[in-house]
């Protein structure tokens, strides 16, 4: 999967670079922007239960149109409790690829380096999940006066899970200096397909974030530091 993802990214990059040379006209800097998500890096550094990164690339085709993609890998350990008591522990680990387009919503004439864009992505993730300690929910207090009865100290592991979704993206970018940009984006995903394990659900998906019971929506953010490799300026 990693190889497929990375080769797809490479292809996208090359095709985009060729297109950009062929199509370009306008008054702005056209090029390929590559970046890394600071939010995921910060979360990796600051929290015990998460590690991950995301690389992003976009290519300006027209003044108002960008081709965009993100590639990431995330590991997240979660525990569900009720009151003070543990119900179960889970962890998720996997990679994702998102690709699509962004349209320019707003760019001040005087500050060409500030951009507001809206876009869509199609996203794919392959991952595995692992159940740790499992306590069964039990409303009567006969089995155990406090807490919940332990069923398994180390639950099953599920390989080969996957999910696909579409994502609406709203993002801001601002030029810091030279061709370095800082950006933030808010993303609302809508789950299209998923392969869940038997007798458990995908409660978290790399790139999608938390999956809520009975809803197919997921919310995730990134905060990207990127470098614009200029190809054409006009």
């Amino acid at each position, binding site marked *: 999967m990693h190889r497929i993802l990375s080769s797809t990214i490479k292809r996208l990059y090359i095709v985009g670079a060729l297109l950009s040379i062929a199509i370009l006209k306008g008054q702005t800097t056209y090029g390929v922007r590559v970046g890394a998500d600071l939010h995921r890096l910060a979360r990796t550094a600051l929290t015990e239960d998460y590690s991950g990164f995301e690389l992003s690339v976009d290519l300006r085709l027209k003044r108002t149109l960008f081709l965009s993609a993100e590639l990431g890998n995330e590991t997240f350990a979660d525990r569900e409790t009720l009151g003070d008591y543990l119900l179960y522990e889970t962890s998720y680990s996997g990679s994702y690829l998102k690709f699509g387009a962004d349209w320019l919503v707003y760019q001040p004439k005087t500050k060409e380096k500030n951009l507001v864009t809206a876009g869509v992505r199609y996203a794919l993730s392959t991952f595995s999940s692992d159940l740790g300690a499992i*306590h069964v929910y039990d409303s009567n207090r006969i089995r155990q006066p406090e807490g919940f009865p332990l069923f398994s100290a180390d639950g099953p592991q599920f390989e080969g899970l996957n999910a696909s979704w579409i994502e609406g993206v709203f993002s801001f970018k601002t030029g810091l200096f030279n061709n370095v940009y800082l950006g933030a984006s808010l993303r609302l995903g809508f789950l299209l397909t998923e392969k869940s394990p038997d007798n458990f659900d995908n409660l978290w998906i790399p790139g999608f974030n938390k999956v809520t019971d009975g809803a197919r929506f997921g919310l995730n953010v990134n905060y990207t530091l990127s470098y614009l490799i200029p190809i054409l300026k006009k």
Partner: protein
Amino acid sequence: MLKRLRLAVLFIALSLIGCEKDDICVDGDSALLQIEFRDASNQEVAKTVPGLSVFLNDEAYQGISSKSVSKIDLALGADQTLYVFDLFQADVETAERIVINVTPKMTYVSRACGFVLEFEQLSVSTLSQPSWISSIEVVTEFVNATNAPHIVIYH
């Protein structure tokens, strides 16, 4: 500079949107094994056992001692498959010894509830000479929180 500050505030706001309150479990519960006592001569009718006591390894099981009831709920454990119970009733000297065999199973319910305890392959047999019980019927081999009674004892 103000713009960058605004961006930072936006970033923090975006990060917080993902937070939600803890859910409450309403979708399921662990199963209790329910045994119902019925009249041997009129099998549709519940019949109270006078002064029922249930013993497991010579100890009253889950406080069921000298109770006049027509059904009992046993909270079987997550890690035990074989139970040998002695069932006494006030009017009869000798106990009925019954063996209950189950396979505990965890069933996923929802994020908030996680897993609940259920039982499969329920079977019952008697070990003693018949005393006050005339027959035992397993109603369902699968035990969950909503399909009680699971065992009917006629007496």
